[in-house]
């Protein structure tokens, strides 16, 4: 299962970034596939990106709501919200584990040998503040004289934008280097901070700062796909917790907001058959019954 997931992560990363002409064109892909929102965090200004970042698109809709209304266009981002809602109601936070390129980066970097530290649980609520404030409220409320806001999360925080778009495009388009200022260095600092944190902690960006994961996590308890814990078989050995890439204590909450449904606990950790899952009410493995 782990090997399968790794291959799917790599395939999803390659499909989200399949425009390999960029070294010759010195630009980004401009085809119609950019109308499709990728399920994971992948900057649409990455030179190889073939689809749109749902967070960037959503912020753009928020930032342009006022001018759009004044011109009779009632575009509030229904398409993006619907896309994320459809994915979330199907599988909850599963794309974080299986499809997100930035999730793959974090898992690979965490393999670097080092002392490992747990993330304090209270920090995992920060992502909801970032989602509300930087994706919705600030782009809506802080506007210029013409009513246009800015994409606050992309501009001030997103380390995926820095590593996938900022740094590669600086090499591809040297003329852009003249625009480097405090903002670029502050985003670079955030990227370096998270890269260092990834070495010592499990998926720190997903757990602390990712608004996309925060949005998907709202569906974890209400999605078609659900994890199931059998307390009668569980010995509270915590093997699932130690193996979990998100540091979730599965035995406390089978559909915890931080569970990314990687299925590592089900496939590799639990030796007592206490973990199973269901899809639309159909249990897997067959015969497993919901006890909690």
């Amino acid at each position: 299962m782990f090997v399968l997931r790794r291959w799917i992560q790599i395939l999803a990363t390659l499909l989200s970034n399949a425009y390999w002409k960029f070294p010759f064109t010195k630009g980004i892909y401009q085809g119609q596939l950019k109308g499709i929102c990728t399920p994971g965090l992948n900057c649409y200004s990455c030179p190889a990106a073939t689809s749109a970042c749902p967070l960037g698109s959503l912020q753009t809709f928020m930032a342009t709501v006022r001018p759009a209304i004044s011109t009779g266009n009632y575009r509030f981002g229904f398409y993006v919200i619907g896309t994320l809602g459809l994915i979330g109601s199907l599988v909850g936070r599963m794309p974080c584990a299986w499809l997100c390129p930035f999730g793959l980066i974090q898992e690979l970097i965490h393999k670097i040998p080092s002392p490992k530290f747990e993330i304090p649980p209270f920090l995992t609520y920060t992502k909801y503040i970032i989602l509300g404030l930087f994706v919705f409220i600030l782009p809506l409320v802080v506007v210029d004289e013409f009513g246009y806001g800015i994409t606050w999360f992309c501009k001030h925080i997103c380390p995926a934008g820095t590593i996938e778009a900022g740094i590669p495009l600086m090499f591809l388009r040297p003329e852009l280097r003249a625009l480097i200022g405090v903002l670029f260095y502050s985003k670079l600092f955030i990227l370096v901070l998270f890269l260092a944190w990834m070495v010592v902690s499990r998926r720190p960006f997903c757990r602390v700062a990712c608004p996309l994961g925060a949005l998907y996590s709202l569906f974890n308890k209400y999605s078609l796909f659900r994890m199931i814990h059998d307390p009668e078989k569980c010995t509270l050995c915590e093997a699932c917790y130690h193996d979990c890439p998100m540091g979730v204590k599965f035995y406390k909450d089978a559909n915890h907001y931080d569970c990314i449904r990687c299925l590592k606990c089900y496939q590799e950790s639990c030796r007592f058959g206490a973990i199973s899952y269901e899809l639309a009410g159909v249990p897997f493995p067959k015969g497993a019954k919901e006890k909690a």
Partner: protein
Amino acid sequence: MAPKKMKKRNLPFLLMILSALLIVLGINLGEVSAVVDKAIKICLSCMGIG
């Protein structure tokens, strides 16, 4: 107890239908072209220079 359980299992389907309706509404409002328009331009904000 039983009705509560049924309600919970219906919720994913209701959410999926609602999400699908939002997608259709967004497409009809021309939001896909708005997404394309933004995504085909180099985003200076994303890079940290604009």
